[in-house]
């Protein structure tokens, strides 16, 4: 029963409605559309009218931070043009992570499908930038460092290709696991109340206070994780894409 309740809170649930009459919907999908629509309308309006000032200032600070501390160090001065990509990536992941903190809304990055899609977009970006900057042959050649013995080169090439996929998988699982872990811990702590109440009603009532305190602590920790994971995903994407973009590898 507990497993079912946990799964209900964490796993995506289908909605008994269809978009345009044919497209099946789920809670994560609806949340995803809401995020896209919300951001697509809200951010241009905030930036155009520069109101509310606090939000505009925060966005400006975010853009400057991403440009100067993430994009430029990894791409060099030529990478200035990629700032919008990383701003969108950061804000998208940040909002996706944050929505789970609002009661009855879902953290869509707690779904492996969403994080896998995000990792796939990063993978596409890496391939696109590598091929665009070095050409297809040049990019494939960059997988094997200069001076590698000819006998080792094919093995190293295969390892590097596997390494690229492993990086993407790690990127996907890191975000997914971090976002789902907080929810699982909070729900598990709260379920402790019911488990203990099953043995003794009074002890169960007493358990409410420490359980609530702990869940509150984990929630606060999760706010930190939300920002850290958005930053980590953006930073790693910039590092991997920057490696493919640069000619030093």
């Amino acid at each position, binding site marked *: 029963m507990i*497993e079912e309740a*946990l*799964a209900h809170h*964490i*796993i*995506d649930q289908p909605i008994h409605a269809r978009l345009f009459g044919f497209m*099946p919907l*789920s809670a*994560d*999908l609806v949340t*995803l*559309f809401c*995020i*896209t629509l919300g*951001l*697509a309308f809200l*951010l*241009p309006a905030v*930036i*155009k009218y520069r109101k509310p000032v606090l939000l505009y200032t925060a*966005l*400006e600070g975010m*853009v*400057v931070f991403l*440009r100067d501390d993430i994009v430029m160090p990894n791409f060099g001065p030529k990478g200035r043009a990629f*700032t*919008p*990509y990383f*701003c*969108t*990536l950061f*804000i*998208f992941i940040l909002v996706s992570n944050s929505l789970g903190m609002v009661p009855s809304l879902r953290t*869509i990055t707690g*779904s*492996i*499908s*969403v994080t*896998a*899609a*995000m990792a*796939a*977009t990063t993978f596409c970006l890496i391939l696109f930038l590598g091929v665009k900057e070095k050409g297809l042959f040049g990019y494939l050649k960059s997988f094997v460092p200069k001076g590698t013995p000819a006998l080792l080169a094919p093995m190293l090439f295969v390892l590097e290709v596997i390494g690229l996929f492993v990086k993407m998988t790690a990127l996907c699982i890191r975000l997914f696991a971090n976002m*789902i872990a907080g929810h699982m811990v909070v729900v598990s702590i709260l379920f402790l109340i019911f488990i203990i109440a099953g043995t003794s009603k009074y002890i169960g009532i007493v358990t409410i206070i420490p359980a609530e305190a702990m869940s509150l602590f984990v929630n606060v920790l999760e706010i930190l994780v939300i920002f850290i994971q958005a930053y980590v995903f953006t930073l790693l994407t910039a590092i991997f894409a920057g490696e493919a973009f640069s000619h030093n590898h």
Partner: protein
Amino acid sequence: MDNLLKPDFGLMFWTAVNFLLLLFLLGKFAWKPMIKALEDRENKIAQDKKDAQDARDAAQQIKAELESRLENISKEAQEKMRSVEALAAAEKDSMIKEAKHTSSVLVDHAKAEIEARKNAALQDVKKEIAGLAVEAARKIAAVKIDAEADARLIEKVLKDVEGKEFKA
């Protein structure tokens, strides 16, 4: 719980589509104007900073120039002061010398004049005394002597008087 790691390809597809759509929309309508505004502001700040630095450099140059000119003016003023002092000292010496000379001439002149007047006065007194002496002698003698004898007498008295030291 088995579904936790089961990928939903529909959700994956829509996530990628939504992200790309968001990338296009935000890139065009949000980040582009914001980055442009930021860069404009940064360029303006950099330009203002450069202008301020240029103005500061120019002010420093002007200050150095003014200080150098002030130093030159001060040196010139000191030199002029020294030459004026030397000139004034020479003038003073010359005036003192001239005044001394003039006063000495005046004193000599006055002395000579005093001497001449004294002599003239003595001459008059002698004449008067001689006249009085003759008159007195004539009255004593009650004799009228002729003019020639008078003249000889006066001459004799005068010679006697001249032979004596006159005391004023």
